[in-house]
């Protein structure tokens, strides 16, 4: 009897700190996001007025919101596709071929993943610098030096692609390591028999490698959506600040600015709700579309 009581007490004291911390800093703020999206509230005063869906209707009339929506979609599409292709190709090269320095390449490719986004932003801002940057200096080898420097971060049409360049640079290694791990589980015998039948490398890649890591690919598709939305926020805040003239404003940077800098808290949270629902829906749709029969090795 005493033992039972001790067991209950032990469980309680082990679990309580985690539950308390989790509730205060994760659950309550999450509920707050949804609740406050229905209020008009400056945040700093106590004057909250319930406005129902007004924040949302205001949101759908805002040009700025549509701009950030457009930019986010563009980034999700471009960054995901390019990163996916590169990560998959490099993973299959590194795990399928017998190469010298395999480990060396894996170590190098993973480096961007351990750097702070601020560090990467600082490095890329320097690379993109119109006058003293590496990129323009490199391009000047091929074109006349008198032509105008390209404003990688200053031109509204180019800046979003410059941003995605930095994001792809950061993400390739992470997904590559992930694909390599699941490729390592594919039995060698499958490739050997394919070799005997005379199937080429590219054919093997599409008919063995891709189908057998399909589950893993599907998981990473969800990651791509969620992490592009998050990473674009981190990059934008450190690199462009949403500029020039809103050309790189993305979902969460717009939300942060409205809620924190502009302190229209209720409106900002409404943006958060929409973005959350959007990313959830997109992930669900992708999940359904990519459903295939599960293959066993």
């Amino acid at each position, binding site marked *: 009897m005493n033992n039972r009581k*001790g*067991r*209950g007490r032990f*469980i309680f*004291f*082990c*679990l309580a*700190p*985690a*539950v308390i*911390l*989790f509730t*205060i*800093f*994760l659950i*309550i*703020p*999450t509920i*707050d*996001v949804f609740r*406050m999206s229905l209020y008009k509230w400056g945040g700093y005063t106590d004057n909250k007025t319930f406005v129902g869906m007004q924040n949302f209707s205001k949101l759908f009339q805002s040009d700025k919101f549509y701009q950030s929506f457009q930019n986010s979609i563009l980034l999700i599409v471009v960054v995901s596709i390019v990163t996916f292709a590169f990560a998959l190709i*490099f993973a299959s*090269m*590194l795990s399928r*071929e017998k*190469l010298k320095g395999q480990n060396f390449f894996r170590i*190098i*490719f*993973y*480096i*961007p993943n*351990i*750097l*702070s986004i*601020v*560090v990467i932003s*600082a*490095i890329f801002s*320097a690379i993109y610098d119109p006058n*003293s940057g*590496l990129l323009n*200096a490199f391009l000047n080898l091929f074109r006349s030096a008198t032509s105008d420097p390209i404003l990688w971060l200053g031109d509204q049409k180019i800046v979003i692609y410059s941003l995605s360049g930095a994001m792809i640079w950061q993400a*390739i290694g992470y997904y590559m*390591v*992930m694909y390599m791990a699941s490729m390592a589980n594919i039995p060698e015998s499958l490739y050997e028999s394919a070799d005997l039948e005379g199937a080429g490398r590219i054919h093997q890649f599409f008919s063995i490698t891709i189908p057998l890591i399909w589950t893993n690919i599907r*998981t990473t598709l969800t*990651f791509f959506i*969620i*992490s592009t939305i*998050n990473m674009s*926020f981190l990059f934008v*805040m*450190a690199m462009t600040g949403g500029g020039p003239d809103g050309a790189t404003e993305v979902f*969460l940077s717009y*939300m*942060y600015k409205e809620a*924190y800098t502009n302190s229209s808290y209720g409106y*900002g*949270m409404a943006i958060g709700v929409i*973005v959350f629902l959007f990313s959830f829906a997109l992930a669900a749709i992708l999940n359904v579309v990519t459903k295939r029969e599960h293959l066993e090795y």
Partner: protein
Amino acid sequence: MNSEHQHSSNKLYKFFIYLLLIALAVVIIVPVGWAFLASIKQDVEFYGSPWALPEGFHLQNFADAWQKAKMGSYMLNSVVTTAIALVLLLVIALPAAYVLARYKFRSSSFWNMLFMAGLFININYIVVPIFLMLNNGDKSLRSLLGQPFLLNNLFILALVYAAMALPFTIYLLSGYFKTLPKEYEEAASVDGAGYFRTMVQVIMPMAKPSIVTVILFNFLSFWNEYIISMTLLTKPGLRTLPVGLMNLMAAQKSAVQYGQMYAGLVLVMLPTLILYMLVQKKLTQGMTMGGLKG
């Protein structure tokens, strides 16, 4: 004849692969290496070709960044915050993960599900609500004690970091605890060890590899984090390293102090690079073990 042809095309293919691999390696190494070189250049050198090697070791940049730009004191803030957050995280997550993985009780599946659901909560959405919560708390504290306490406090920042890392850490650790056979607890109980002693002296030492993985990952994410830090530390003197670097980036745009900026950049990334070089194998293995990161 045919096999010879195949052999040479094979060679060509290998050559092509090496070319691609080396190209990507160059694309990754050059920007990072360039930042290192730029950190020892003098400001005037930046007007020349960006490909030029530094003329000498201009270490004054580091002294300037450390003192004038206060990166030294920001580094201390970062070290303190990261250390406290790691200790808090381990002290709180280890017992919780252990109990959730190995004890069945009435509400255990509820808690398991709750922490799993936490994996989907994203910090970037809730950082402003957290700021307002702490700000409101400060307001009441001011009228109560005459002194705000919650914002601009490294300990609270560390507490928030630890809370953010809880779901994933518990997920990772309890995944490991589930793999241990039940006999360990039974044997310990026969020896007369209580619940607490069994956990601390029998189970924890076995979990060391997972604990190391947890520390590595969270060190990187705490050290590199800047959105929460930027939001919760509003006093200019109180910053963590990445936020200090953002400041240097902004300052460099108006007053041309390239060298100092690159020196600050090196200060932020050097600790993570050194750690990575020491434990890279563990890190990439651990990543595929957990398979998920914010």
